[in-house]
């Protein structure tokens, strides 16, 4: 079996699972409790926070735990809207964000906020000139993802950050769910970025874990209120065993990051080099450093994405249409449609997404399976053409 759907979710690392298991047995107290059980849990919670902060080169107080990427994105957007509404009601994002951003923005529109969606070019990338033109005196937030989850485009975060230096009051948010551990930390943590979203289960940590980075001094209103955990910004009993396991997962992810990134890039290019020779194939991801090393997206024109996914599944290879979150809707990819790819082609797109455990041998197997299936795809494609 070959698992090539790591952008949907990753398998928890065995070491992550053992941390979760051990902590669940030994340090399961409520960190808010004042007794020894609580103190142990609190200490481990803060050690985990420190470890994550150290790994990312930020301060302890800038890391806040959440239930995952969706919560982080919802929180930063709505929390900014609520916190800064007396300063303005305008938010800017891109046309190719994850639904957690897009649908939060739509909800804010219902509540009277104004949202600008920046267009993208044929590479799925925004143009900073468009951002500059969109900025208004009432703009309170700019949210740009680090890596697109469907085709892997890396957004020009440095240029965005440079531009926003002239707008110091605007919150600059980066959804880095797909970007962590992919060799672009300098870009994500550029000095103008105020808020960043992370999700644990995309890097072999448990489901239901995540955290946000919130730059010191930058304020957002809470999304969940109650017991006042996380410095009164995110209520709910902290999941210490899973948080400790997430810190472990992050450490493992960032160990030898350069080597792992190079390997994923080599696998990506090996597959792209192979499939691009076939006449029915349209590539969306590109073999250069402006695309993330672990995501590759292409279409086999005339064959539905679902059909391709199932054909590969029968060969023991797990890939996906575009994003897992939209794959059940049989909908065209939102990223590809923002790139003005005709629906006839975008509904034929598939995504292969890698992690540091995938090997070149698996890429060879994928390519061999592709050769084997191609005749079948060609037949289907001809039928569609008729």
């Amino acid at each position, binding site marked *: 079996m070959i698992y090539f759907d790591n952008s949907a979710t990753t398998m928890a690392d065995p070491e992550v699972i053992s941390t979760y298991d051990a902590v669940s047995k030994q340090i399961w107290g409520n*960190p808010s*409790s004042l007794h020894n059980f609580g103190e142990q849990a609190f200490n481990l919670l803060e050690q985990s926070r420190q470890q994550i902060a150290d790994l990312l080169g930020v301060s302890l107080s800038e890391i806040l735990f959440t239930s995952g990427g969706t919560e982080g994105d919802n929180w930063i957007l709505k929390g900014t809207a609520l916190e800064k509404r007396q300063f303005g009601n305008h938010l800017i994002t891109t046309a190719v964000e994850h639904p957690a951003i897009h649908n939060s923005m*739509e909800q804010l529109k219902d509540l009277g906020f104004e949202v600008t969606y920046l267009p993208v070019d044929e590479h799925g990338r925004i143009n900073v000139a468009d951002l500059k033109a969109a900025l208004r005196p009432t703009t309170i937030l700019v949210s740009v993802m680090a890596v697109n989850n469907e085709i892997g485009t890396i957004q020009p975060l440095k240029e965005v950050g440079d531009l926003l230096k002239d707008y110091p009051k605007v919150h600059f948010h980066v959804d880095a769910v797909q970007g962590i551990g992919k060799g672009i930390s300098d870009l994500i943590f550029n000095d103008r970025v105020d808020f960043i979203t992370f999700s644990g289960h995309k890097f072999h940590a*448990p489901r239901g874990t995540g955290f946000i980075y919130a730059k010191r001094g930058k304020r957002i209103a809470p999304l969940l209120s109650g017991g006042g955990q996380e410095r009164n910004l995110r209520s*709910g009993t902290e999941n210490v065993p899973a948080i400790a396991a997430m810190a472990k997962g992050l450490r493992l992810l960032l160990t030898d990051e350069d080597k792992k990134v190079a390997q994923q890039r080599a696998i990506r290019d090996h597959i792209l080099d192979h499939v691009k020779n076939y006449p029915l194939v349209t590539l969306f991801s590109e073999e250069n450093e402006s695309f993330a090393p672990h995501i590759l997206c292409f279409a086999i024109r005339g064959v539905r994405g679902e059909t391709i996914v199932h054909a590969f599944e029968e060969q023991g290879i797990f890939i996906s249409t575009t994003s*897992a979150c*939209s794959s059940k809707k049989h909908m065209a990819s939102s990223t590809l449609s923002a790139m003005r790819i005709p629906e006839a082609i975008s509904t034929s797109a598939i995504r292969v997404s890698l992690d540091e455990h995938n090997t070149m041998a698996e890429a060879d197997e994928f390519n061999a399976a592709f050769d084997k299936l191609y005749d079948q795809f060609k037949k289907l494609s001809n039928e569609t053409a008729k």
Partner: protein
Amino acid sequence: MKEIYLDNAATTPMSEAVLTEMTDKMRNVYGNASTLYGLGRESHTVLEQSRHIIAQSINATDDEIVFTSGGTEGDNTAIIQTAIARKKEGMHLITTAVEHQAVLQPMLYLESLGYEVTYLPVDATGHISLDDLKNALRDDTILVSIMSGNNEVGSVMPIHEIGELLKDHQAWFHTDAVQAYGLLDIDVQRDHIDMLSTSAHKINGPKMVGFLYKREGVNIPSLLKGGEQEEKRRAGTENVPAIAGFAKAVEEITSAEKAARQEKYAGFKQQIVEGLKANDIAFEVNGDLDRSELQHVLNIWIKGISTYVMQTNLDLAGIAISGGSACTAGSIEPSHVLTAMYGDDSPRIAESIRISFGRGTTAEEIDQLIASITAIVNRLKKRSEVK
């Protein structure tokens, strides 16, 4: 020395079966339940089986269960999203003065947005009066949120009667059942409950997972927007291992088990009360010992000894109890529950402790607790006499 944990209302250790279930699912069922292929379908199956087990536990249908990140999210969602969805039908909500902060804080937030909230008072046993509720109900009331059982003193609210009263009123009935789920038999049909929130880590399940029951027809927008998980009612990749662990914890608590626990815990309460009396400790129970309450919680006023001193001394003796609720996050603030019951000038507010039992609690541990409290009280008394 083995430490004694008597703070099960704050959190509980995971049962062995639950943890085994979770780590098994982490290893073996890791597909994203929203994906198309086999691994995802397997996750989806586990998700739906778990949902079925949980729906059965409160007599709901499967599609009325929405998984959440825990009790706080369930409460916040039920309250804030109802207020947003039903603004045209009214801007008045009713709750009680003794709710968990996960209910009270959203209510305060709504007040800041111009909604009106009525906080029902409680009597000295921690119960509301139905007449107060009847008097507070208005044509523009859109939500009544009343906890099933209180987390600090264990008082059980008249849920069935409230449901009967509200079934012909436009207001939806939400109950925070975080403490009651796992001890009381909950039946959302019998009690006409529209929304109910729970948390797994209070019943020996994993942390950071819970569910919100929403009766069919109760349409509120999702608090978390994004992917179309949970039939668009809660975005975010489903935490299948934790949900499977939650279902396992629920399965372990049969109706018979609930009754057995209530009886066992009631026995512990008696044991403490009688033990302290026999040792001439000056104390009183906060709440009503004779009523059938949430029996895992006993709140007592130990006269003349501050909560903090008693808690610290018991901690040194290896016994974990609480000064009230674990939230508000580590701070030592006067309990709003005891204040509502006894007024803010009562000495009980600064001199009470909460003892809460769990499935591992034994009579021997209770004996040790009695002995430790007695020793602490006598030591402190002697010290003040020396002065």
